[in-house]
């Protein structure tokens, strides 16, 4: 390990080497029985986590809180900026300096890019970025990697198709970079207006993995091991008619999946709207709810590592 995990901030997936991410995945796997309540471990007893959420979140906040509780720790925070001093005009820097005196680790979601790094600048306590604007959401990327690794046994050389809003979706940017770091073969499927930004393509190329861009989902999934679907957000389109046209093109249903290999897994960071038909839910392909559960063991692993109870 190039540097230890204890006391470390988790701001961007780029701050972690492949070896470090692999270690996080190993620890996450060991956390599964505890995350399910089948085993007990109270090694974070006496530790306090502060979730500071300036934007709404369901899965991320609940899974962090569940992770902390499963390991015997406590949670003291807020998820409604309307009732906090932010409304009175307090800066994030001041909020963080106040919160650090109450807790051992801060989990932050904020609407502005770079907010997590700023928070980390103002506290000695570790800060975990739970999404900063259109920026990074590293723990989502880690749980996505964990899901592929658990379901497929490896990430290297797997054929991963990313479909949906590849231009604005923050999860797919970090995920594409991380998958490239792990040597997965990538296919980006989106209408041209929502294709992957150039800087992400450049990064993928630098990693030397094979990648392709397409607007044909049917063809792309023929040899895919993983289909990662993201929501296309209507607010990104100036013309609602254009949105309707695009959103219907990439709907995943059992008919479409007939053209894929029988072992393909379908992932989605959730919430979904109608990108995946509910009929897919009952098939072995659907792993998106398992993926949402995986947020718990992965976040348990991260909390245990940065609070120093696991090396």
């Amino acid at each position, binding site marked *: 390990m190039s540097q230890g995990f204890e006391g470390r901030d988790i701001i961007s997936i780029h701050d972690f080497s492949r070896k470090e991410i692999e270690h996080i995945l190993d620890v996450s796997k060991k956390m599964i029985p505890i995350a399910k309540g089948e085993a007990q471990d109270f090694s974070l007893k006496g530790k306090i986590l502060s979730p500071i959420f300036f934007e709404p979140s369901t899965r991320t906040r609940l899974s962090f809180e569940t992770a902390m509780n499963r390991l015997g720790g406590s949670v003291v925070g807020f998820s409604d900026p309307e009732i906090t001093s932010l409304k009175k005009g307090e800066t994030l820097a001041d909020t963080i300096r106040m919160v650090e005196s109450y807790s051992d680790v801060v989990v932050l979601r904020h609407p502005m*890019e770079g907010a997590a790094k700023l928070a980390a600048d103002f506290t000695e306590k570790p800060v975990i970025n739970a999404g900063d604007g259109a920026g990074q959401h590293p723990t989502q990327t880690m749980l996505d990697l964990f899901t592929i690794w658990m379901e497929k046994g490896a990430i290297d050389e797997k054929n991963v198709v990313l479909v949906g809003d590849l231009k604005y979706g923050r999860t797919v940017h970090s995920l594409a970079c991380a998958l490239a770091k792990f040597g997965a073969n990538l296919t980006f499927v989106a209408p041209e207006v929502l294709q992957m930004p150039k800087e992400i393509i450049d990064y993928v190329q630098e990693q030397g993995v094979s990648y392709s861009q397409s607007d044909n989902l049917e063809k792309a999934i023929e040899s895919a091991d993983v289909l990662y679907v993201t929501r296309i957000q209507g607010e990104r389109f100036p013309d609602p008619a254009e949105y309707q046209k695009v959103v219907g093109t990439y709907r995943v249903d059992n008919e479409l999946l007939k053209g894929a290999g029988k072992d393909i897994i379908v992932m989605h960071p959730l919430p979904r709207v109608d990108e995946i038909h509910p009929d897919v839910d009952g098939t072995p392909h659907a792993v998106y709810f398992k993926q949402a559960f995986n947020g718990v063991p992965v976040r348990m692993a991260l909390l245990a590592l940065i609070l120093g109870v696991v090396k």
Partner: protein
Amino acid sequence: MKEIKVAPIKNGTVIDHISCGMAFKVLKILGISDANVDSTVSVLMHVPSKKTEWKDIVKVEDKELEPIEVDKISLVAPDATINIIRNFEVVEKKTVELPDVAVGILKCGNPNCVTNSREPVRTEFVLKSRNPIQLSCSYCGRELENIVDHII
């Protein structure tokens, strides 16, 4: 080649080898306008240069540059040289150097970057490439376009 007919200065700074057309940007960085200077400022534009064919030169009397001003000049004129003149003699000659990390001298172009809010934070940009100059914000990661327009 004809000699340049601008009188030597007694005390002050000569900024030579400024990229052609950037002299006024350098004046802006130094905060020089006709209303606020008591000494002579000479601006030479489109001057023949041995190194780069054409260059600009700025001479400012009775002023020596602050390190932060030198850092800012490096962003608009990466090949500039700074000559400190005391009593008509060049007492110090140095080339500007692009800093690996530019702190507090540039504004991020991303309106949703936290450094553009009212947080008490200095901007920070990491140098990704020297030629062409490429800088990215340490906070939001956005690469800076039109660097000259974002100098604080």
